[in-house]
């Protein structure tokens, strides 16, 4: 292959766009494509196939059941109905309460770090630091901090709240910990967006006698629109994907109220091995996410 491309390239010395032997591009792509086909494309299709079967990992027979796994999710009399929709509700509640905080608070953080000042890089790194820790470390640490008997948080507040075991506190804990953990990530994205707003827009605003608020309202916010769309979209996706915090911090307590959809789906599919039903659930959740994303894009477009 090497000598072939060498000749091919050398015989066309003057072409502006480098040409190559026919096999060359595919040889460069082959290792990645092999992984992509086996671990992304195949699962995407195989997953649909699984969802059409009564697929129990531990059983030999995996009869085809058509859409039964899907219709069961809509049938209040089925075994999975109540638990599945309770978990969808939990994901919905978490997303509804975490997204606004994760969209607005990082913007404030980014404003604070936008203009150059001494120690700016240091503080930026500090606020981002929790994000480089994994969900396991973060959840375990906060589980102890929020412990109803020995936790530092209850002691500081002078309260006696079961942060991980009672409602609505479990939601406050899950949202609060997630905000603490990921605020730096969204903050950094806003910061980069602010850096891209042309300086002369700010200068023009100054000439017009705009105050700090007017400047923020009429220059910074409109300039951040595309970045904000990205932040909102990825934050909704990330919140809807929430698993680790619920698994480690509240363990779904109380009574499964904080068990998210992913938690329930993976428990059904990979712990109880009812894979057909779990696969169907994951597609229903995906459909819900697509709907939310479409609405989100529409809203952003209308306002622009």
């Amino acid at each position, binding site marked *: 292959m090497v000598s072939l491309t060498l000749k091919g390239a050398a015989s066309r010395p003057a072409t502006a766009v480098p040409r190559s032997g026919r096999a060359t591009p595919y040889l460069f792509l082959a290792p990645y494509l092999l992984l992509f086909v086996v671990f992304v494309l195949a*699962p995407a299709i195989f997953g649909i196939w699984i969802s059409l079967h009564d697929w129990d990992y531990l059983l030999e027979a995996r009869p085809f059941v058509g859409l039964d796994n899907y219709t069961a999710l809509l049938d209040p009399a089925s075994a999975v109905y109540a638990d599945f929709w309770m978990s969808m509700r939990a994901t919905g509640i978490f997303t509804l309460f975490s997204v606004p905080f994760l969209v607005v608070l990082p913007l404030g953080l980014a404003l604070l770090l936008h203009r150059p000042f001494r120690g700016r890089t240091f503080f930026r790194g500090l606020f981002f630091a929790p994000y480089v820790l994994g969900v396991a470390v973060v959840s375990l640490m906060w589980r102890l901090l929020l412990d109803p008997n020995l936790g530092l948080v209850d002691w500081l507040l002078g309260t006696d709240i079961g942060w991980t075991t009672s409602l609505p506190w479990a939601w406050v804990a899950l949202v609060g910990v997630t905000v603490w953990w990921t605020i730096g990530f969204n903050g950094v994205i806003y910061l980069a967006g602010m850096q891209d707003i042309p300086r002369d827009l700010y200068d023009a605003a100054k000439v017009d006698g705009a105050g700090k608020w007017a400047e923020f309202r009429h220059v910074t916010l409109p300039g951040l629109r595309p970045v904000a769309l990205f932040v909102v979209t990825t934050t909704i996706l990330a919140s809807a994907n929430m698993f680790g915090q619920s698994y480690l911090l509240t363990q779904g307590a109380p009574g499964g109220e904080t068990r998210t959809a992913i938690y329930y789906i993976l428990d059904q599919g990979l712990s109880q091995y009812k894979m057909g039903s779990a696969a169907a659930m994951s597609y229903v959740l995906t459909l819900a996410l697509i709907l939310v994303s479409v609405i989100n894009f529409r809203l952003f477009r209308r306002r622009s």
Partner: protein
Amino acid sequence: MKRYTLLAALAVVFVAPLLWALGTSLKSQSEATRMPPTLFPTEPVTRAYGTIFEGTTQTPVLRWFANSLIAATLHMLLVLAVSSLAAYALARLEFRGKRLMFAVIVGTLLVPGFVFLIPQFLIIDQLGWLDSLTALIVPGAAGAFGVFFLRQFFLGLPRELDEAALVEGANHWQIFTRITLPLSKPALATLAVLSFLANWNDFIWPIFVIFSPEYFTLPPGLSILQGAYTIDYPVIMAGAVLASVPVLILFALTQRYVIEGISRSGLKG
């Protein structure tokens, strides 16, 4: 001055929990459960670290540490290798179906990862990779982010050097290894750190594909540790510290790359 007061107050919120975890890991068990709680140990002891370094067959913590290091390093190298090769083809070479291929690869970035987990589990099972580090190293490298990220970077590199090299008779392998890769060190460093971090911290995948304690990595291991040492908080926090220190050091050394990489993924994503 007002700015620094606010920043300092925020800094406390972000740092105090981390210091508290470190402090707790150095407390005796009685001090860790004493009320009122202390932020720092009055008499620091290293017992908790002794316990986790010694380990048990159910909680071989040092083994988990080694597994995490091996899995994250090999995963990172695999991501760099396959992503840079594919990105070069997508940025620099012409071939049939290129646009479609790129669209399909990038399109998967929009599909939430959980959809793949159950079929991936079955595929890993067929390959005989369940309950092995291979299951933690290889499948994640199929992710589209690295290819997308490097392609964007390669597109920004000047073509003149490639063309000059072609005129001199170089082939694409030589251009890739001697021109493109050396010019892309910042992007490769960013991708290296991001993929290392993601693998090191991964929790959801290892808890389902690894069953034997000796193949666990630290994140699923920590949840085992919590089960085994329920109220021995110093031991649990020592485990958390062990899982945090490498990534915090890595982040401190490569902050610029990590933050720039994430910024760029936001703007061009």
